């Protein structure tokens, strides 16, 4: 069941994608991303003077003939990209048709697979009231199924507390962090976004909503129950109250988007009725997260 988080046909099409970063990264192992270090890729980077201890195989003998001094030919090092996925599995995600949490897991799995296929290192963290680590970083395509099984194993529920994401985000090595959430928890999302910025992370916020919460399809009397806090309130839905709700939702989502963009993060709003393949191939490519 775990291995079926994403269908093989979807995975085959994801093979052609790669996670994009705007600036060079510093990883621990070789990968397919430009590193701040000089390395052994075919891509020429610069010259520098030879100093004892350097690999004499990198001496450019043509430059020596012209300049009469040893120059080292430097190439761009290609290193792995540290990718951190933070997936919201709070109670508010346990809702909607299609189910928001399940869609978030599939989306996270798809992004992780793209990264793993590019030899990037993927760290998975799910959160609700607090963060829960998804274990040691995953690397290589073969780790994908393990990551899928792991992400499927997390329960869904509890309130959202973005402020408790500050520490896990701050301790990340510079890289790319993707936050998948509905942004609807009672606690503000600002601390988590600020932490991304301070940790010099390239970040992306993917806000995932269900169609039924964007346009409620019911009216009349009801007892409303909060999916996260289980708080209840009696309520009479009328066209006027539905309009007020839609306005509040629009304000909230706009706040999330503004916070992300203000801090230079990429932002995309997704709905759970979108096919994951469509989210990846279309939306995430449009915002420059994948390419």
């Amino acid at each position, binding site marked *: 069941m775990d291995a079926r988080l994403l269908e093989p046909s979807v995975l085959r099409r994801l093979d052609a994608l790669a996670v994009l970063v705007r600036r060079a990264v510093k990883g621990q192992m070789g990968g397919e991303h430009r590193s701040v270090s000089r390395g052994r890729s075919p891509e020429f980077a610069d010259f520098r003077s030879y100093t004892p201890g350097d690999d004499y195989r990198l001496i450019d003998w043509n430059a020596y003939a012209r300049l009469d001094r040893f120059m080292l030919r430097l190439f761009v090092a290609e290193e792995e990209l540290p990718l951190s996925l933070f997936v919201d599995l709070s109670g508010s995600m346990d809702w909607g048709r299609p189910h928001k949490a399940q869609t978030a897991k599939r989306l996270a799995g798809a992004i992780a697979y793209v990264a793993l296929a590019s030899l990037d290192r993927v760290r998975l963290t799910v959160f609700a009231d607090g963060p829960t680590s998804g274990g040691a970083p995953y690397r290589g395509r073969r780790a994908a199924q393990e990551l899928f099984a792991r992400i499927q194993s997390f329960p869904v529920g509890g309130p959202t507390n973005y402020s408790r994401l500050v520490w896990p985000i701050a301790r990340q090595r510079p890289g790319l962090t993707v936050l998948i959430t509905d942004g*609807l928890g009672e606690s503000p999302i600002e601390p988590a976004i600020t932490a991304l910025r301070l940790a010099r992370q390239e970040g992306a916020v993917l806000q995932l909503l269900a169609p039924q919460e964007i346009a409620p399809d019911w009216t009349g009397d009801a007892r*409303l129950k*909060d999916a996260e806090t289980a708080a209840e309130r009696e309520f009479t839905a*009328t066209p006027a109250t539905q309009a007020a709700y839609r306005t509040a939702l629009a304000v909230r989502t706009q706040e999330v988007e503004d916070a992300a963009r203000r801090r230079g993060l990429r932002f995309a709003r997704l709905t759970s009725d979108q096919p994951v393949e469509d989210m990846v191939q279309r939306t995430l490519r449009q915002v420059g997260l994948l390419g």
Partner: protein
Amino acid sequence: MTFLAPAAAALAVTLPVIVALYFLRIRRPTRVVPALHLWPDQIRDRQANVPWQRPRFSWLLLLQLLAAAVLVAAALQPALPATASLAPHSIVLLDASASMQAKDVHPSRFDEARREIGAMIDELGPQDRMTLITIQTPPRIIASGSGDHDAMHRALGRLTVSNGSADLSAALTLAAGVTRAGEQSRAYLFTDGIVEPLHASFANGLPFPIEYRRVGVSGENVGLMSLVVRTSAQSRAAYLRVHNFGQQARSLTLEWRSDAGLIDLRALSLQAGQAQDLVLPVPDAAATVTARIDAKDNFALDDSVTAIARTPRAFRVLLVTAGNRFLEQALRLRTDFQVDVLAPTDYKGSTAYAMTVFDRFSPPALPDSPFVMVDPPSGSPLAGGKAVGIGRVRASDAGDPLLTNVTLQDVRVARSQDMSASRFGRALITSVQTPLVLVRDEPFRQVLVGFDVHDSDFPLRIGFPILVQNLSEWMLPPSVPGHSFHPDEPVTIVPESGATSVTVVRPDGSRRQLATGAIATFADTDLLGVYTVEQTAGGNTDRSWFSVNLFSDAASQLAPVDRLALPPAKAFPSPQTTHHGFLGIWPWIALLALVLVVAEWLAFHRGL
């Protein structure tokens, strides 16, 4: 104010029910939402949140209670007293004759009368009944003793006006028939007063009083009152009468056309009340001729008339006499008769003649065809007893159509055979001593005259040729009469020998099939215009025509009658009582309820 449906007050129980529903705590379904804090903190106090809570002001509850109260008020059917005074049983007599098509009141007299009757229906009380009878020929009962307003309105709306006359006597007879003994009834007569004269039998009165509601205001009308085509040996001509019945001089154009096209246009000027007779040419090939005037008056039915111009088929008639100028001349007046005269000694019997007249002669064998036997000689099987002196004569039945326009007042007969014992047929003209003229239908239409016309001054009177004309038309009716008929007047059609189908095509194109084996009476003559009779025999179709025109001085006169002589009401055992009708106001109250419901809907959507 009166409530027509007081039982509907029981519906007021809905008011406390609404209040009770408001106080009852509702069971709300639980809905899980991802972010409760995004939903406005709003709960509608349409209903209580806790059982039997202290009532709080709610616009919705107030509007709901108001709407329910107003609906209950409408269901009670409150009514205000109206001006009309109605009896428990109202008999409405509506004139549906031709003159009610006049448009001197908008849209017409008939529609105006219907509007007034409609208002009267609305004013009927819960216990009141109404009978609706249309005055036409024959009259019809549209609704009998009904208190159902809707049914009465529907029946009234379906009524149409006819082109015929108004037989008020028959309508009053019907009205008397629907009245129950001891019932308080009152008749309301909606008419312009242009009705057929009342029968004398109504002088004894009716079991209800009649209230005359005059309809119509003006008698301005120019009409075409007669159109006849006469054929003589020399020519054919049409005689047309135009009459201005109004109080003002009128100028108009007469359009004269045949079925082949326009013949003439003439400008006419008529003083108030003036009639003008015109002689108009008729082309030889014309089958029908039509006169039309652009009178632009209040009444259109008499602005166009049509006559049949085709010469009727000729009959061969044989007169067997030793000499009788009176009979011969009277027979020759018929232009469609070809009269042959034979002396009794030359008579051999022939089937070539459609009719034979035997004057003081009786053949050895009577023909199997129509005949007239005048003063049969002794020895004849039709001869009567010995001669008796007569003197004055009279009609056996003054209303007999065979005596139409025949005056017998000054007629004397010197002597006649005693026909008292004759079993020939019924008496047409009789005397104190003996029947004088007898007629029979079987086996053929035949006439027996018991006296020699020379022993009477009857041949010297105008009634004699008219009687011969009437009798000969009766004995030899044309297959299709070519003259004009009045609307709704039955037309006798004698199918041609060997006809396999007889169809009448009405002016509107509709077709009526008639039986071919017997003389048929066609009564669907309600439309004005030309009727075509198609008879098919041996694969050939023969067409003949008759026309239906208004030709009614009474209808065309058009001026509504101010005072109509009506039968008195009989003395009643109890005094007649009437009450004011009711003016229902519930539709307005129902409209108010609708406004309140809309207001409640708006209040709900605006979150009040």
